[in-house]
């Protein structure tokens, strides 16, 4: 966003030119560029190596593992033996929900196996993502609008809004666990006897409420950054032209804050798709609150290679979502921007 909106309204002279930094001396130009290229690759090397070690290697090794069978038990000795290559069977275990039957073939995974939970976990993950991100966007926008105004005690409000975001998620989850306990504050306050963590929809809403409480500030902060990029003169001009508050919001605030908003939503969506600690602590995954990440962690305890297949699937799902965001929603933003700049010319 900084490249997008930063230079245009606020800084007056900076738009002057990108070429002022190293005044070229004509003769030595090629040498300078060549040595700079060398320098650049040397300077970049540590970063690239670090990325290769901590990102590329684990991903590749996870994919390799996902095609290996987990260790099986040798009935004679009672000891585990190496599983050997598995082909796509680990993926079939999840996507087709086929478990190996005792007589050697495969059967539909019975309830009580992790394999039987893949599609329900996927649905739960997307349900949580859509609902929480939608709520957080609306509430975050509202909070950002308030924080963007100048009023007495604004810095206090800003600090207070950030408190939930500053609390570690595990602590948040424990906090809400106490609130949603049968004898907890929620039931006392509303005089109800709901088993918040003991039945399906209350459990889902408990997770959603806790997540919205925790991450709305993050959303608000990113949107606030976008709001502050909008120059006040635009609003003043609109006012002079007689635009109503709603028109100002719809025609000025929304389009100008949209790039920041899209990044905020993208971040939150990717974040929500890997939701783990909140439902894990709050409900333990009971009552259909098992997300894909919880499923991965549970499977790691039962077999690494099958878990590697699931984390690869999760990786692909999240990547697809991110791709769709950038390709379609992001493209939309781009068109509007170019359209606007054409108009200016």
């Amino acid at each position: 966003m900084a490249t997008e909106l930063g230079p245009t309204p606020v800084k007056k002279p900076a738009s002057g030119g990108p070429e002022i930094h190293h005044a070229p001396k004509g003769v030595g130009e090629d040498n300078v560029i060549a040595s700079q290229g060398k320098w650049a690759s040397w300077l970049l090397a540590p970063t690239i190596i670090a990325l290769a070690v901590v990102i590329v290697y684990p991903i590749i090794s996870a994919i390799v593992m996902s095609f290996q069978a987990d260790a099986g038990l040798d009935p004679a000795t009672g000891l585990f033996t190496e599983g050997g290559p598995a082909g796509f069977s680990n993926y079939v275990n999840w996507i087709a929900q086929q478990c190996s039957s005792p007589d050697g073939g495969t059967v539909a995974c019975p309830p009580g196996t992790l394999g039987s939970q893949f599609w329900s976990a996927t649905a739960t993950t997307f349900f949580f993502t859509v609902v929480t991100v939608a709520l957080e966007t609306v509430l975050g926008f509202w909070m950002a609008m308030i924080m963007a105004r100048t009023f007495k005690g604004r810095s206090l409000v800003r600090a207070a809004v950030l408190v939930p975001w500053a609390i570690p998620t595990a602590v948040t989850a424990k906090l809400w666990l106490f609130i949603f306990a049968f004898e907890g504050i929620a039931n006392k306050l509303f005089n109800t006897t709901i088993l918040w963590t003991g039945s399906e929809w209350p459990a889902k809403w408990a997770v959603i409420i806790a997540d919205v409480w925790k991450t709305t500030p993050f959303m608000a902060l990113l949107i606030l950054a976008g709001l502050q990029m909008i120059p006040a003169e635009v609003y003043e001009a609109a006012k002079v032209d007689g635009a109503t508050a709603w028109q100002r919001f719809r025609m000025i605030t929304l389009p100008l804050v949209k790039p920041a908003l899209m990044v905020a939503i993208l971040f939150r969506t990717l974040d929500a798709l890997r939701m783990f600690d909140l439902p894990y602590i709050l409900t333990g995954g009971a009552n259909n609150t098992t997300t894909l990440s919880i499923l991965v962690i549970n499977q790691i305890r039962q077999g690494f290679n099958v878990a590697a297949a699931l984390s690869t699937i999760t990786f692909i799902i999240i990547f697809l979502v991110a791709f769709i965001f950038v390709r379609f929603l992001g493209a939309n933003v781009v068109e509007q921007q170019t359209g606007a700049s054409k108009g200016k010319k």
Partner: protein
Amino acid sequence: MKTRNYLLPVAAAGVLALSLSACAGGGGGGGTTGGGGGDAAANLDGRGPITYVQGKDNSNVVRPLIEKWNAAHPNEKVTFKEQTDQADQQHDDLVQNFQAKNANYDVVSVDVVWTAEFAAKGWLQPLKDKMALDTSGMLKPTLDAASYKGTLYAAPESSDGGILYYRKDLVPTPPKTWDEMMGMCSIAKAKNIGCYAGQFSKYEGLTVNASEAINSFGGSVLDKDGKPSLNTEEAKAGLNNLVKAYADGNIPKEAITYKEEESRQAFQDGKLLFLRNWPYVYNLATTEGSSKVKNVLGMTALPGKDGPGASSLGGHSAGMSVYSKNKATALDFLKFLTTEETQKFFATQGSLAPVLTKLYDDKELVAKLPYLPVLKTSIENAVPRPVTPFYPAVTKAIQDNAYPAIKGEKAVDAALSDMQKSIETQSK
């Protein structure tokens, strides 16, 4: 185009970061070596410094003990490697170090439910022949829990069993059987409190409670060969007891959210007539200021079909790594952990239930820990939780099916047969 250029790397970086966290756990899982016969035969006479690995030493029992050992064995000193207090993390830490064949994890403390898994992976030194341990005088269920396929793989270190707490002021004679206890629920109704609760939230505690219900009525989760055996009338009768009690309201509906602490709190607040829980409740319920049951706390063995029920067994054993270089010293240390003196120290200092039968009748100990006689009955009748290398899959199968059954959302027959099938497809 600017926005596109900006968003793409951001998105890619985000996705990579996510997948990284997903992969981190799997990274070390490449090599699971079966057998380990060579390692198990090596270094049997090795002597020298060793390391003892255990979860967080909350009641400060391990350090004084090791100091005492070190004073007596200046050339074979023990170093204490303390893990976190989270069981899952302790488990994963041990797995990683065994996979890396870390020779510095000489003696490790293993939860009773991990023993079979570690033994089947070939990580624990079999305690037989030259490495045999004198097990006379130890409670049999603790030895069963530390054995796999008939071989002892770890030295029982501490034990634990379920106790039925009851209200002495309301119940004149404690119930001996489940039916007797259900009969007494009219007392609770008259007082407008809940009758019975255990731990029925969907977590490890549910496995403990469901297995107890099944074992107490003559059923079993796994047979002697480690195969599931849940399609039986006995198992059905056992699980059905919990289902029926929940449907009748004898188990209050909020008990479906109870873990150990919630159920203890409810009992201490005077909201329950009977509570199934571990021995740790005794101290808290009799000393905490807010406890309403301080002077009326009764304890007895879990109720079964015709007599005491079958408690699930808790506790830890001390195993020796096959990769240890100093196994002779490690064996001496295992013996040291199970001496009468050490066991007594564990009991008095850390409230850990001893594994030696005779300590349960020790007057001095009973005066300090009045629940010991009841706990002895409990542990003597205890059945280890399913001893299987596939424990994570088995406990998952039990939890996922017992939970909807107790809530009345799934028929008992279907729940048991799904447990059976789930365990069958996953233990191979």
